[in-house]
């Protein structure tokens, strides 16, 4: 009886819903996030991505290094965090050389680049949200992000949105 209860808890009520907490701003982990998200959306899943902390770099309007945010410290921090185009790889980054090598290899092997994956996520109307607390800390607001970002949410709203489906933390 106990076992069957555990199994039933692990089964999503809504198997065609995938929610991803995108915490990492690393190039490779963002590729994983967007590959999963677009693949799931293409086969009919409802997909929600909740971007928080470093993950927010992926959805900034300014994709390179820029002084975004309000206040001196957030602006400096925002500059070093950068955006989609300045995302480092999680290992063997070689001072930013590795993402350039990866982009070159992806194009050469006809694999979607990170930028193409983000464009696909927009085209597939994946639900993208920004974390309210992280925005508050970093002095950012919704207008600093691409207009496809549907809203700024806290944990409880994200839990409501993701309820019943599968949730991943990347």
């Amino acid at each position, binding site marked *: 009886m106990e076992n069957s209860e555990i199994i039933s808890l692990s089964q999503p009520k809504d198997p065609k819903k995938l929610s991803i907490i995108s915490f990492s701003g690393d190039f490779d982990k963002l590729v994983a996030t967007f590959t999963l998200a*677009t693949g799931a959306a293409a086969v009919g899943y409802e997909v929600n991505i909740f971007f928080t902390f470093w993950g927010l770099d992926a959805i900034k309007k300014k994709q390179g290094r820029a002084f975004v945010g309000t206040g001196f410290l957030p602006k400096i921090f925002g500059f070093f965090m950068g955006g989609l185009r300045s995302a480092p790889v999680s290992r063997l980054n070689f001072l930013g050389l590795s993402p350039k090598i990866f982009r070159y290899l992806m194009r050469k092997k006809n694999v979607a680049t990170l930028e193409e994956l983000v464009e696909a996520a927009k*085209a*597939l109307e994946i639900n993208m949200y920004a974390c309210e607390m992280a925005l508050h800390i970093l002095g950012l607001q919704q207008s600093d992000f691409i207009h496809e970002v549907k809203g700024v949410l806290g944990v409880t709203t994200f839990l409501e949105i993701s309820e019943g489906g599968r949730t991943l933390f990347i």
Partner: protein
Amino acid sequence: MTFVKTKIQLSKLQKGDILEVLLTEGEPLTNVPRSAREQGYNVLEVSHVEWLIHKVIIEK
């Protein structure tokens, strides 16, 4: 990713329009026609074009 690109192109078409997808052997060749059928599209043809290239014709 092949089906992602296929789905995006299909979304731009009208009902009854035809999409021709060229792909290489391997996982996409199985996945694209199967996913298209699951999504309710009509797969009209899967054929070999040349060497490793195959063609899938899908009707929206």
